[in-house]
């Protein structure tokens, strides 16, 4: 079962950003993107991050070729957008501090409500 974006850490997001930007990439290519000038230790770090992302269902691994090639399994807008929305929900309307200054929030309008509001606008506006 795919996990929610909640579980994506900052470093994992950096790897995902590189995957979105580069497309299919090997571990070495991703290491050079995330840790420019990195060596074996950083290689192992990126490998571990990719293992986690694969486990969470956010990347796929092509094991046919060596070295393995990784591809993003979720789109950027989907992952970041959902995560942003989730955090914003907690900040704005959840139980925590509303540090956001936002325009409005609300639930979907019914057709009747939307029609009523549109009528209000059309009727009252000069």
């Amino acid at each position, binding site marked *: 079962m795919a996990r929610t974006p909640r579980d994506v850490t900052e470093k994992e997001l950096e790897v995902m950003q590189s995957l979105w930007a580069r497309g299919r990439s090997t571990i070495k290519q991703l290491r050079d993107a995330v840790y420019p000038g990195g060596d074996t230790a950083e290689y192992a770090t990126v490998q571990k991050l990719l293992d986690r992302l694969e486990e969470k269902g956010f990347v796929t691994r092509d094991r046919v070729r060596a070295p393995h090639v990784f591809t993003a399994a979720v789109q950027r807008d989907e992952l970041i957008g959902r995560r942003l929305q989730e955090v914003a929900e907690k900040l704005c309307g959840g139980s925590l501090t509303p540090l956001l*200054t936002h325009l409005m929030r609300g639930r979907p309008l019914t057709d009747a409500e939307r029609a009523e509001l549109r009528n209000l606008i059309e009727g*009252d506006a000069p």
Partner: protein
Amino acid sequence: MTLAEMAASNLVVALVLAVAAAAVGLWGRRPALTHLLWVLVLVKLVTPPLVRVPLAWPAPPPVAAEDAEEPAGVPVRMVLVGGGAAFEAAPEPPEAAAEPPAPFAWGYWPGAVWLAGMLGWYGLAWRRSAEFSRLLKLGLPAGPDLVQRVARLAALLGVRAPRVVLLPGRLPPLVWGAHDPVLALPEGIEARTAGAGLDTLVMHELAHVRRGDPWVRWLEASALGAWWWCPLAWYASRELREAEEQCCDAWVVRVLPGEKKAYAAALIDVLDFLAGAPSPPLMASGLGPVADLKRRLTMILRGVTPARMGRPASLAVLALAAVVLPLVPALSSGQAPPPAKPEENDVLFLKPDGKGVPIQLELRFEGDKPAGDPNLKALEIELARKIAELEDVRKKLAAARNKPLVGRTPNPNKAGGDGVVIAVEVNGVGKREVDALVQKIREAVGADRRVSVEVKRPAGKPPEGGIIIVGEKGGLRFTIPVESIMRPPAVVVPNPRQVPPPPLAPVPRGKSVEERLDALMKEVEALRREMKGR
């Protein structure tokens, strides 16, 4: 003033301000004024009170001394000299001093829970805010057209144009950050809300920047964290937000007066965009606050809501803030408030056995200073109680032995009528000092009253140096400056003709309060056993 008293007084003043803010919001037509009053509520919640204002409270009729239920008895004033014990407790009447607070009593738990909740709340808020800031950096920079549009609108409003980023996901237009605000817009907003509608939405967010609302977020977060359990804080936050949105709506209408209709339509578009999903079934209607949205749209379309308060109202609110914010309401019955923290020479009223003669302990500190640990304070009070109990037992023991008192024997006949019998127990002082003490007692009582003075010299060295007990009878009250008659404790030579009462074991200095207390308790028990045997 304790933290609990500060919190209570802040809550009372904030509640009064909240009632005023709610009334202005309900009947007034200036959301800016309502907003400022709600800001004051939050400010009051997080700022310490400074000026105590006694509020009149009907005081009970004074009870005459002869009508008081308290037995007159022989109030005894005991001065502890050289005591390292650090008494620190509010002086209490005899009835209230029956039980000292136990260490880790239940009374500490509310404060502990409050503090834990506060820290947890701040920690979680900080973590989520940091995560949102991090995610915000993943946003795409706005295109040049949108940047120019924001700059043009910012110039109309007279603010510096903020950085603009485009975010994926279903987020409303928002402003993030107070010092260097970022205007975040959902990706594709230009395609969904083109033209005047987009201008009005951006203008609304810029109005937040102009009003300094991102700074108010910090105040709001501070108040909500500190008062996470208090409905008033959450209610104030909600009302503050509503007034804030009304103010920004008014700014949009003021700066773009011809776009009211486009603005109202854009708000509905944003609401649909945020919902994302198809319209809910009709049965779901009425569950949400559509009435609030209707009211908001009506205000926008009418366009008569003032965006600002006006100078007179601003000055009035500022004056109100200057007066109300530092206040500390305190109920007063016309009597002077007791000192918040007992100082040296304060008096503790204690009854060792819960009945009979109340004992006043005059506190004198030498050496160690009062400690701030409440547990230590409780133990110190317990220690004082045991000392008083020890003296009581020793007196009874002396009476049981039927030994004549050293010094002058009281003569009840002489002390009859309006005469006075005073018992003085001294230790560690010489005859000259005792004579001086007796003389001072006579002077204090007055030459027109007959005085009989008992002087007792209990053997053994009392704990922590010398103890002088001065008793009084007949409703007379006086104070003798002990410094004038005291000198460094002298070696006490017990009268060989007397069988000395069991000496008080000197409590070694440097031991903990618990050890001292245990030693005294053992002493009390030993004396009791001996008295029972006799």
